[in-house]
Every structure is written in structure tokens, then in C-alpha cells.
């Protein structure tokens, strides 16, 4: 039976992971996401489900523990915030290059560098374009509520295993820290059977399993890269998720995800009270990006404003999707500052309607 609880976004991730039957969490403390590890340690999941929880010596070690565990065919979770996620990029590239599933949570804070500890959305490029070296993508889910923080843990694991590819929950310090009521799924058992590629010890008479991303033959390496690209095209065909709010009669469109999307809901109301027909498209998967939906909307509206807590990153994907059909601009605050609903409406009026 589902259970209703009042939790922080970060805590919801942890509780949902235990309930999803995760086998291990490896992480390193960093604000604003340390509650994920703290909650797990306090909950003693080794007693609840046998789940392993370990505080690693660094984010680098943590992601490589994820790699080792994922290669055993297990459901492995890690989490961090922006500077720590940068440290994990090498490992993520290896995990993608070895076709392993795992789930990574990035509770984004303002950057660059050590930046701030306040919420931001400035890791969009890093999350959606690969992040580490080589041609690979992550499946990127963008929750806008504590409920989605919990729900996307199971979804993230399911997609990661379906495609044998790392998945990321890209959220921010606001959703990580805020408390909301959340319906939690009932406890799922941990896996007892593992995929055929998992290193669980060579069975007599069977081939050994080798997990590697190395191929010294460039023709084979290219062939493998084509296989990866085919996988990403399948994700684009099958896994695009988004939410439409007041889009039916919209003359102008806001596109925003996560915390920005919540603020934009209020902006839509304010604008409509002023007689401006505004809709909101909220991408839920940032990769695969809802480019077909945005292309379709570009044929219906007079202009599109991308609202992000960044200097404008997702706006580039919107521009590519729109193919120059309508005006596209960006509005956003940076460095841990969150925009107000009112200033978004003003930006829409100045940059799109009046501009």
C-alpha cells in the first residue's frame, strides 16, 4: 500500500531508493544534497532491505564504486551537487561507455567553480550533452516537486536498465530542500536474478563476462559508437516526457523545467489576468528533449520564452527545435537567485511581445 509522508526532496530520493529495491548508494557529502546520505545512514537500509550504503572518500571514488556495483548488475544510486557532479564525469563516461545502468542525482547549486550553495539550473549543458568525454548521453529527468523526486527514482532505474545507460535526476537546491507531502510506493524486493552481462562469477561452461569501454580497434570502436547513437535515437522516439499547462489557446509559450516551471505556473496566471494568452510547456525529460512538441508549438504561438535559472542553456535546444519559425528568447537569474513570477511576465512582455 502507498504511504503518505512529509519529506524534503532529498529525503524523498533516499526513501524512494530503499523502496525501489536499490542495492547500494555510494556518495560524498556536499551541500545542498547531504540529506540524501544522512537519511540513508539514519534509516539503516542494510537492516530494512540489505541495501549497502557507503560514504566514499571522494565523488571520484563514489562514482567508481557505482561503476563496480553497476557492472555486477545491481541497482546503484549516487548523488551530489554541481562541483561534485563535475568530478563524477569521468566515471559517468566509463559507465555509459560500458553500457551499464545507474542513477545519479544532481541537486544543482550556482556555479561556476565553488559557486554558491543556493539553487540553480546551470548544469543543463553538462547533464544533457554528455558531460564527460566521448559521444554519449545520459537519460535526464527533471522533477518539479517532491513527489516527482520520489517517483523518478523508480522511473530512472527502470529507464537505466531498459537502455543499459546511466540516468540522471537533474534537480536543484530548492526542490532538494523543500518539504512537501509525498505518496511513497510500497517496498519492492531487491533483485535476486541479474542480467546476463553482470559480473557475478563465470559459470562453468559459460563465457566469462568482461565489462570494459576499451576497444583498440578503431573500426570496432566506431561500430560501438553507432550502436550507442542508435540507442539514443530510440530514447528520443520512445521516452520523451513533458507537461502542458494552458497550451491549447496559447499565443505565447513559456518553456521551463523544475523549479522554474513551478514559478512559471504563477506567471501564466498573472499574464492571463492581464489578458495575455500564455501557456507553459514543462519538459520532464531534458534528454531526450521534447523537440517535436516544441516544433509543433512553434507553428501555433507568436513567441517562446525559455525561463531558466542560468544564463540560457536549454534555450539553445528550443532554438534548434523551433528552426527559426518564431522568436525565441531567454530570461533567467543566476548564481543562486530565483526569478519571481512577476519579473518573468515583464521579461515576456519586453523580450517577446514588445520586442
Amino acid at each position: 500500500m502507498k504511504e503518505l509522508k512529509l519529506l524534503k526532496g532529498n529525503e524523498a530520493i533516499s526513501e524512494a531508493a530503499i523502496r525501489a529495491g536499490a542495492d547500494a548508494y555510494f556518495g560524498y557529502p556536499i551541500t545542498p544534497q547531504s540529506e540524501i546520505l544522512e537519511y540513508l545512514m539514519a534509516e539503516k537500509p542494510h537492516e530494512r532491505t540489505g541495501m549497502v550504503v557507503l560514504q566514499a572518500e571522494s565523488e571520484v571514488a563514489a562514482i567508481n564504486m557505482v561503476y563496480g556495483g553497476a557492472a555486477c548488475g545491481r541497482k546503484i544510486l549516487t548523488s551530489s551537487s554541481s562541483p561534485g557532479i563535475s568530478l563524477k564525469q569521468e566515471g559517468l563516461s566509463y559507465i555509459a561507455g560500458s553500457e551499464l545502468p545507474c542513477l545519479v542525482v544532481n541537486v544543482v547549486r550556482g556555479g561556476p567553480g565553488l559557486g554558491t550553495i543556493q539553487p540553480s539550473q546551470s548544469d543543463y549543458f553538462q547533464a544533457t550533452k554528455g558531460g564527460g568525454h566521448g559521444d554519449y548521453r545520459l537519460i535526464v529527468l527533471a522533477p518539479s516537486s517532491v513527489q516527482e523526486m520520489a517517483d523518478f527514482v523508480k522511473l530512472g532505474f527502470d529507464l537505466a536498465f531498459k537502455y543499459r545507460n546511466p540516468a540522471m535526476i537533474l534537480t536543484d537546491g530548492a526542490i532538494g530542500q523543500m518539504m512537501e507531502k509525498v505518496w511513497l510506493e510500497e517496498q519492492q524486493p531487491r533483485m535476486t536474478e541479474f542480467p546476463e552481462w553482470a559480473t557475478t562469477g563465470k559459470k562453468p561452461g559459460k563465457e566469462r563476462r568482461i565489462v570494459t569501454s576499451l576497444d583498440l580497434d578503431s573500426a570496432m570502436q566506431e561500430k560501438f559508437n553507432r550502436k550507442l547513437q542508435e540507442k539514443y535515437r530510440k530514447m528520443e522516439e520512445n521516452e520523451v516526457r513533458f507537461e502542458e499547462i494552458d497550451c491549447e489557446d496559447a499565443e505565447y509559450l513559456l518553456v521551463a523545467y523544475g523549479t522554474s516551471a513551478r514559478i512559471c505556473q504563477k506567471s501564466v496566471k498573472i499574464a492571463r489576468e492581464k489578458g495575455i494568452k500564455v501557456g507553459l510547456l514543462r519538459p520532464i525529460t531534458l534528454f531526450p528533449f521534447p523537440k517535436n512538441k516544441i516544433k509543433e508549438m512553434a507553428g501555433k504561438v507568436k513567441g517562446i520564452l525559455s525561463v531558466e535559472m542560468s544564463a540560457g542553456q536549454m534555450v539553445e535546444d528550443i532554438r534548434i527545435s523551433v528552426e527559426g519559425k518564431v522568436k525565441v528568447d531567454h530570461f533567467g537569474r543566476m548564481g543562486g537567485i530565483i526569478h519571481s513570477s512577476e519579473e518573468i511576465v515583464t521579461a515576456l512582455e519586453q523580450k517577446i511581445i514588445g520586442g
Partner: protein
Amino acid sequence: MAEQITNKDIAREENLVFKRTGVLTDKVMHYCPGCGHGTVHRLIAEVIEEMNIQSDCIGVTPVGCSVLMYNYLDVDMQEAAHGRAPALATAIKRLQPDKFVFTYQGDGDLAAIGTAETIHAANRGENFTIFFINNGIYGMTGGQMAPTTLPEMKSSTSPYGRDVKMMGNPLKMTELVAQLPGTYYVTRQAVHTPRDVRKAKKAIRKAFENQKLEKGLSLVEIVSNCNSGWKMTPVQANEWMVENMFPFYPLGDLKVDGEMAK
């Protein structure tokens, strides 16, 4: 006159006194002639066979000359990023505590880029085995200075010899790791003579068997040569190793059954 004995008569099952272990694959090894990697691979494979743990073994290979070890050992293996093998092994062993888990790492991998992973896995007392091949040089990338390169030793990035004032001192990781409460067995061996090969094999076996005791990490360092990187013949390289490497990296046990050796 007695009947002629042919080769066919000799090569019969009952006359067989030695064969290559089945835990090694048929793949021809890529190592330079005279290199210690092939010998150590075979010793590990023989121990796995003798302990009958082939189906319970998971190995982690490094970045370096032995990156392709998984081509030669017939057990499940994972290929780590440079230096990170102890992190992978930590997860593998914690998720599958009944398996025999080992890493195989060179000096650059274990004692430079992977220093943190090595020390912290050892300090946590992770219950797996590290095989550490120390040849004092980065072999695969073409003979650059390693953390274990001896003072005054020439390499492609210390072409006039390692000047410790400028380039720092060689790091004795095995001595360092032996101090940590999480290690149970720490030893330094070599494989350049039949006697040393036999001793090294005993150490490898002990290191594997320790995993059943669940008392912490076992580390077996093998001081080896890199004749191509050192720009010597295999024989010269072994002689140079005995004369120069062994005084700096003395062979023998550093810690046995959790107690520092005298």
C-alpha cells in the same frame, strides 16, 4: 632390438607432469619478452585453479600495460578507469561478499592517480586483494617517470635522471599501506628467479585465502622490470632490478595476519 619410442608414445595423459592452467586463455600475451606481467598472470591463474574458485572470482584491471589482462584470465572481469580499481572492488565485494575479488594495478595506477582510492580502501579494511606490480616506470605510455621511479633513474620525463629536489621522492606505497589498521597482509615479492616465483605464488595464495577470514585488505607487491622502458635487455633489466630496485624496495613480508613483521 626394442621397439622405437615415438613422440606420440611419450605425449600420453599418464606421462603428463605439467600443463598450463585452464584459468589462462589461449590468447597470446602482448607483453614484452622478459616482462614480469605474464608470470604474475600465470601465478594468479594457477592459484585460482588450485583453490577451485574460478566461478567465484571477479577481477578488476587497471589502466597501463596490464589493461588487457581480461583477455588472458578466464574469470569475470571489470576494466576500471586509471587508478580507480579499489573503488570498483569495494563495491563488488560489498555487494557480493562471497566472491573472491581482486585488483591488479601498476605503480602509476596505484601509487599516483589512484593513491586516494588505494589508501582509503585499505584503511576501511575492504576485504579484497590488491596485486601491485611495481616496475618504477609508466610502461604503456612509453617510459615516463612513475611515483616509484628511483632517485637519479632516467625515464622519458626525467631524461637526466630523477632529481628529487625538483621532481619529488619515490613513494613507498606498500610501506605506507602496511601501517593502516585495515590491512591484514602486506608483502613484497619478485618473479625474476624460480625461487622467487615459488615464494610469490605462496603470497598470492595467502592473499586470496585471507578473503575467507574477512579481516581486511591483502596487498601483494611484485617488484618487476620494464626492460623496454628501462632500455635494457631482459637479462640486464633483471640484474639492474636486483642491484637498484631491491635495496630501495626490499623483498619480504611487511605485515602478516594483521601484525607488522619484525
